[in-house]
């Protein structure tokens, strides 16, 4: 038995080596696939649901197979765009700035929703004694993901302008990871107050997924530029043009398009450019999130 166990061990090692090398040699390079991802600002299952009709539409428009990969980490999307593992990504304003820096300025934002040009964040709480930002001192507070624009960066920037430093003035700072999770944190009392993207808040209120008698908005930020669809810089310009046109062609009068726009919570898509996000870059520097 001991002998066979020895043999087993040796065999195990040898086999493992053999398979590792066998798998190493299988390379794949399927073209005509458009690889898409999105920052996980909502639950990945929700993102997949939202993307499905848009993916079909893009397949029809470009003639390519569209593959959507859900992720649970903001930075992984940025990194994947930089290492060319994805072609097209739905980014927030700040993640776009990060992607721009990581790709040495080559990432191109193509379109944004009309709403993204005047985006806001909402501060929410279930505590009736919190009525203004200054009441947040000494409370526990939930941001979204650390690299979220509307759930972390811009609120932090506006808190700073109101004279509040989250690390010093709040009792505890948590990162819920996603906007809907922030609402769950605040509704459950895990954090006394939190901040999230206005669009997700409005959706949750519309869908009655939040009890507005309990959780209420007590402050809203001034508007800023947020989300866009970004392509990696070395994508075929003809394809970039096709994608841009496909988004811009979406027309709310067309019922099929209306469904897509509805799921994306967009009135329509409008062209965007890098310069739109310079404000966010400045805010990120002054809030200490960019160095």
């Amino acid at each position, binding site marked *: 038995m001991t002998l066979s166990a020895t043999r087993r061990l040796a065999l195990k090692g040898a086999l*493992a080596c053999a398979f590792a090398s066998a798998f190493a040699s299988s390379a794949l390079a399927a073209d005509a696939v458009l690889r898409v991802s999105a920052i996980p600002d909502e639950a990945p299952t929700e993102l997949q649901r939202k993307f499905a009709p848009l993916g079909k539409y893009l397949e029809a428009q470009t003639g390519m197979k569209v593959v959507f990969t859900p992720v*649970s980490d903001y930075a992984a999307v940025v990194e994947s765009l930089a290492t060319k593992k994805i072609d097209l990504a739905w980014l927030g304003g700040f993640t776009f700035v990060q992607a721009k820096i990581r790709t040495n300025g080559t990432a191109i934002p193509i379109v944004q929703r009309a709403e993204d040009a005047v985006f806001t964040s909402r501060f929410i709480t279930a505590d009736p004694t919190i009525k203004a930002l200054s009441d947040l001192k000494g409370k526990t507070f939930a941001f979204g993901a650390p690299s979220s624009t509307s759930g972390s960066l811009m609120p932090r920037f506006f808190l700073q302008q109101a004279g509040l430093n989250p690390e010093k003035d709040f009792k505890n700072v948590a990162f819920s990871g996603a906007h809907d999770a922030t609402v*769950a944190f605040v509704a459950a009392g895990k954090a006394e107050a939190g901040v999230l993207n206005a669009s997700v808040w409005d959706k949750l209120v519309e869908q009655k997924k939040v009890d507005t008698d309990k959780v209420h908005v007590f402050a809203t930020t001034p508007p800023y530029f947020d989300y866009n669809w970004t392509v990696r810089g070395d994508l075929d310009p003809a394809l970039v043009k096709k994608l841009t046109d496909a988004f811009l062609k979406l027309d709310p009068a067309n019922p099929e398009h209306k469904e897509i726009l509805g799921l994306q919570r967009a009135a329509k898509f409008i062209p965007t450019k890098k310069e739109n996000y310079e404000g966010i870059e400045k805010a990120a520097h002054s809030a200490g999130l960019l160095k």
Partner: protein
Amino acid sequence: MLLNPAPPRDPAARGRLSGALLALVILWPLFRAAEFKPGALFDSSNLKVIGHFLAGFLPPERGAEFLAYLGKATLETLAIATAGLALACVIAVPLGYLATAAGREQPTLNPLTRSLLTVLRGIPELVWALLFVRIFGLGPAAGVLALGLTYGGMLAKVYAEILESVDPAPAHALRRSGAGRLLAILYGLLPQASKELASYTVYRWECAIRASVVMGFVGAGGLGQLMDQAMKMLNGGEAASILLTFMLLVFAADGVSGWLRRALDTPPAARASPFGWRSISFLLVLPSAVIASFHWLEIDFGELFTAGAAHSIGEFVAGFFPPDLSSDWLARVGLGIWETLAISVVGTLLAAVAGLLLALPKWRAPFSFLLNTLRSVPELVWATITALAVGLGPFAGALALALHTTGVLGRLYAEALDNAPAAPGHALRLAGAPAGLSFLYGTLPGAAPQLIAYTLYRWEMNIRMAAILGFVGAGGLGQLLYFELSLFHHAQASTVIIAMLILSIAVDQTSAWLRQRLR
């Protein structure tokens, strides 16, 4: 009984009391840093919140769509664990060979390999996973590599120690008669050590399943990723289904690994061939499991070795140097270290007390069940629940560690107490001592070295866990690391990783020293 001596006095009382006081003085600041406030557990609003959340566990989610996700994630978890361990073996066998003193004529410390192993082991697998998710993009490849590296480091160290611990005479004899070192190890040492080596490898596979669940929390796929989502959304029904699946998986892995280890203990049948049905089926199942795992995960390791990948890895790694050593940042990291240390110490101590209490009752069945349940829920999952119970912060982390560790230590304590010599306790009982005293002065001293060793070993593991509990809001180094990595502040993240490494090495050393002192 005999002549009743003057007022009964405890001869050891003074020493024990002063020891306890000293420990309290040392531990007090740590308890403060962990924001130890048991009162928060009974706060009515907190109780309502957690009651509400736990009530949501019933009924567990059973929708077809969700079950399909769950099935896929379960397979993915199994595959990550199996593939990860296969990779770990590939790493561990040569490194173990290099590191071990076995079969060497002159003793050598081999500092290079040893320190490589320390680095591999000292950085928690979750941190490796977090880095690999960035380098290799989305999906389970990151989890497999992370497991492979950490477990490779652990396996190599243990392989080396096992080979050193067996009788060196056969290997010596072989070396003297001119055999090379490899042959001496293969034929002189492996036959004695093989059972222990195989047994430890199987045990690690079981651990890998637990760990691969945890890695899902940073986006490396599998059950953990589902769990992370369900917990973030505080979706009790989904969380309950995932937890049940996870527990079943852990119990099944426990069963399989127990069966395998028993099989290794079975004396060989009196047959010419050493290969029985177990060995044959094992030889068939193992490679197919490894192949199936790699296949299912669609990992393309070829991509790892392309020039482009090497370039992007190089660039990524270069971003971590030099680490940020500005005094501002060092002060924040120092605070993180202190908080992490506090979480690990408080968590382990609470667990030691609770574990001992749960290990005492004679009627084991309900307590074993409780301990197994506590143990099979990973710390990160406990942390999301304790954060609801006592609010975000280090105390939630300490409690989460305590809950999981109670399960582990309780079981080990119960075994150690069972194995402790029964005679002294018996003698005291016969001499008329009450049950409590005969336990304290008869049974406990016999079992104490073992109990303390288990507790210290667990502390070494908990310091690594405490370092990453911050990912779910429990403070400490983990939260710093998560935040800085999200913002691509690699120089700062690098300082935090180095701090984690130093902390875990320091704790290993302290624990080894304490074990030696207390022996």
